[in-house]
C-alpha cells in the first residue's frame, strides 16, 4: 500500500465500517502458543531382536506472557530377544546367545515441568518418573538459559539427578538402587549472518548397582557368571554443533561432533552431517549420515578363558565397535496451526569400525527407527 493520501484515507475509513469487508487476520500461533505434540515411533533390530513401539504425547500450556507448564507422557511396548552372553562357536568363532522366550515389557514414563522467562533469562524445572516391571526411576532437572549481546550469544547451564531401582524377572521385588548426577553447560554463538556454533560440555557420575541383571558372562572353566560392573562411573563429554546456510543450494548444512571418555575406559566419538532444505508449499526435508565409534571397557571381554577379576561384562554395548548410518526426514506445515513430521534413521554396527579395545563380529547388527509426529500450535 503506497503512502496513504487523504482521499484514500477517507475512502478506506468509510469502507472499514462496512460489515464483513475485512477478514480478521488468521490467528496463527503467537509468541507463546499452547501446543500438543503426538508421536508414534517404531524401532526394530535385525535378526528379529528387540522391537519397540513408542507412543509419546506432550502438551505445553502458557500462563501469561512469561510462564509455561509442560507435561509429557511416553509408553513403550518392548518385545523380542536380546543378547545374554557369548559362547565359543564352531570353528573357534565366538557366537552370540540370545534370550529364548520373547521378552515382553511395557514401560510408562512421564514428566511435568514449569518454565519461567524473566527478561533474557529462562529457568526450567522438570520432575519425571519412569516405571516398568523391573525398573523404576524418578528424576529431577533444573536448567537455566540466558541471552547476551542482543541475543547473539546464549548460555545454558543445568543439572539433573535421578534415583533408579533395578530388579529382574527372577527377583522382581528385589530392587537394587543407583543414583546419577548430571551437569551440563552449553553456549550458542552467532558467528556471521549465515552460521552459528554451539559448544556443550557434560559431566555425569553414577554410583550404585550399575550392572545389567539380564547379562551373563561365559567363563571357559567355570560356566556362566552374572554381569558385574564397577559401582562407580564418571563420564565427560564435549559436543560441538556447527550450522551454516549455503545460498548456492538454498540449504543448510549441519555438523555435530562429540567426544566422550569415562573411568571404565570407554572412549567414544561421533560425527553427524545433515543437509536441510525448505521446499515451496511449506515442506522441509533433511537427510544425512551419522558415524559413531567407541573403544571397549577395560573389564570387557566377549568371553573369558580364565576367571575374570571382580568387574567383568560381555555386554555388546561395552564392546569396541563402530557404526555408520543414514538419517532422513520430512516436515509439512499443513495449516498455520498443524504440522506433521516423519523421520527415519538406520544404523549398521560393525566391530571393525571400533576405535580400540576388543569387539566381535557376532555383535554386528542393524537397528532402525521411524517416527511420525503431529504438532498443533494454537
Amino acid at each position, binding site marked *: *500500500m*503506497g*503512502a*496513504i*493520501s487523504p*482521499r*484514500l484515507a*477517507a*475512502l*478506506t*475509513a*468509510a*469502507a472499514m*465500517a*462496512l*460489515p*464483513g*469487508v*475485512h*477478514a*480478521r487476520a*488468521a490467528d496463527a500461533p503467537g509468541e507463546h502458543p499452547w501446543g*500438543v505434540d*503426538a*508421536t*508414534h515411533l517404531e524401532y526394530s533390530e535385525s535378526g528379529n531382536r528387540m522391537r519397540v513401539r513408542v*507412543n509419546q*504425547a*506432550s*502438551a505445553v500450556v502458557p500462563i501469561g506472557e512469561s510462564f509455561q507448564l509442560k*507435561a*509429557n*507422557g*511416553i*509408553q513403550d511396548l518392548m518385545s523380542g530377544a536380546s543378547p545374554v552372553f557369548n559362547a565359543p562357536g564352531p570353528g573357534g568363532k565366538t557366537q552370540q546367545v540370545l534370550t529364548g522366550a520373547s521378552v515382553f515389557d511395557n514401560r*510408562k*514414563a*512421564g*514428566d*511435568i515441568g514449569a518454565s519461567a522467562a524473566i527478561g533474557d533469562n529462562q529457568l526450567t524445572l522438570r*520432575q519425571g*518418573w519412569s*516405571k516398568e516391571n523391573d525398573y523404576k526411576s*524418578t*528424576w*529431577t532437572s533444573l536448567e537455566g538459559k540466558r541471552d547476551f549481546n542482543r541475543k547473539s550469544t546464549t548460555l545454558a547451564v543445568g543439572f539433573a*539427578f535421578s*534415583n533408579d531401582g533395578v530388579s529382574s524377572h527372577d527377583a522382581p521385588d528385589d530392587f537394587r538402587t543407583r543414583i546419577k548426577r548430571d551437569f551440563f553447560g552449553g553456549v550458542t554463538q552467532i558467528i556471521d549472518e549465515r552460521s552459528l556454533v554451539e559448544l556443550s560440555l557434560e559431566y555425569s557420575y553414577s554410583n550404585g548397582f550399575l550392572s545389567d541383571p539380564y547379562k551373563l558372562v561365559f567363563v571357559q572353566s567355570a560356566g556362566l557368571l552374572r554381569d558385574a560392573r564397577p559401582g562407580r562411573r564418571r563420564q565427560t563429554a564435549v559436543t560441538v554443533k556447527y550450522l551454516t546456510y549455503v545460498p548456492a543450494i538454498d540449504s543448510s548444512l549441519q555438523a555435530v561432533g562429540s567426544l566422550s571418555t569415562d573411568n571404565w575406559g570407554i572412549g567414544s566419538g561421533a560425527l553427524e552431517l545433515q543437509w536441510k532444505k525448505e521446499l*515451496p*508449499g511449506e515442506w522441509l526435508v533433511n537427510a544425512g549420515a551419522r558415524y559413531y565409534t567407541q573403544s571397549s571397557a577395560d573389564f570387557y571381554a566377549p568371553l573369558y578363558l580364565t576367571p575374570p577379576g571382580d568387574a567383568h561384562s560381555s555386554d555388546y554395548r561395552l564392546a569396541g565397535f563402530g557404526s555408520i548410518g543414514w538419517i532422513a526426514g520430512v516436515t*509439512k506445515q*499443513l*495449516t*498455520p496451526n*498443524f504440522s*506433521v513430521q516423519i523421520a527415519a534413521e538406520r544404523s549398521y554396527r560393525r566391530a571393525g569400525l571400533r576405535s580400540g579395545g576388543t569387539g566381535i563380529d557376532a555383535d554386528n547388527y542393524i537397528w532402525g527407527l521411524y517416527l*511420525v509426529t*503431529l504438532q*498443533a500450535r494454537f
Partner: protein
Amino acid sequence: MSVKLDVIPAEAGIQYLAATASAVHNAAEELTMVTLYRYPFAAMGSRCEIRLYASSEETAAACARAAIDDVLRLETKYSRYRDDSVTAAINRVAQAGGAIDVDAETATLLDYAAACYEQSDGLFDLTSGVLREVWSADRRELPDTDTLQRLLARVGWSKVRWQRPRLVFGFPGMEIDFGGVVKEYAADRAATLCAEAGFRHGLIDLGGDIKIIGPHPDGTPWAVGIQHPRIKEAVMATLDLFEGAIATSGDYERFVEIDGRRYSHILSPRTGMPVCGLAGVSVAAPECVVAGSATTIAMLMEDRGAQWLDEVGLPHVWMDQQLRVGGTYA
C-alpha cells in the same frame, strides 16, 4: 529432592494424549492434498466465479455455497428490478418525497457512498439513476437539453438529507441506486467468509471485480488479465496479485451507439450526458469496494480521471480514447 510416587499420574494423561494424537493425525491426513475447486454462477447481471484451494470437495463446496448465498442475498436486497427490495422501498418514499429509516447495513453503504460523493467532488452520486429514464438501451438520438434539465433537477445527493438512520427526500421524483457499490461490497464479504472459514488460497470474481483470498498454495500470486477496451480478446495489462482486490470500469461494457458514436452507460450527474474520457480503467486496493468506486470516479472525472487517480495514490492502469495506456502498472 526426589519424590517417590508409585501411582504414575501420567497413566490417564497418556491415554488422553494418545487419543488426541490419533484424532490430530487423521485431520493431518485429510489436509495434506490441496486441489483447486471452481464454482461459476451468475449474479448482479454478470458472470461470477469462486475459486478455492481446499483439501476436500465438501469443505470447498460448503464455503462456496455460503459465499454465493450472501452475494445473492445482496443482489435481492438492493435490486432495482424487484419491488420487495430495500432499494424499491426507499424509491417508493423518494418518488413521493418523504423520510425513511434504513437498516444498519444500508446505513453504512450510504455513509460509504457519501464519502465517495465528497472525494469525487459530487460526481459519484447515488441519485443519478433518474437519468436512465432517457438513456435507455434502445435510444437512437441524443436527448434535447431541456429534457435533460428537467431530469437533472431531480438528481443530486446534496438535495437529500442523510442523518443515520433517517433518509429524507425534500421533494418528489428522486431515485436511489446502490449499483455502483453493491457488487464490489459483495466480493469483499464473500472473500471474508472464506478467509474466516480457514481458507488461505483462492479468489472471488464477480463480473471482473476480483477480491483475492490468498495467493496460490505455493505462494505465487494470481495473474489477473485486464481486458483491452477495444479489442475483445486482447489484454491491456496483466497484474500479479498476492492479496487485496482489483476492479475495472470502461465505456465498452454497456454502451449505446448513436450515429456511429459510442456512449458509455456511466452518466454524469452534472451534464446528464454519458461520460467521455477514459476508455477503460482498473484500480487495485486492499478492499474491492474502494477499488470499484475509484474506477467509477476516474471514469466520471473524464479528462481529469488520470490525474485524480495519481492523487488517490492507489496502483492503477488506464487507456484513453486514443488508446494510449498510463498509470502505475503501465
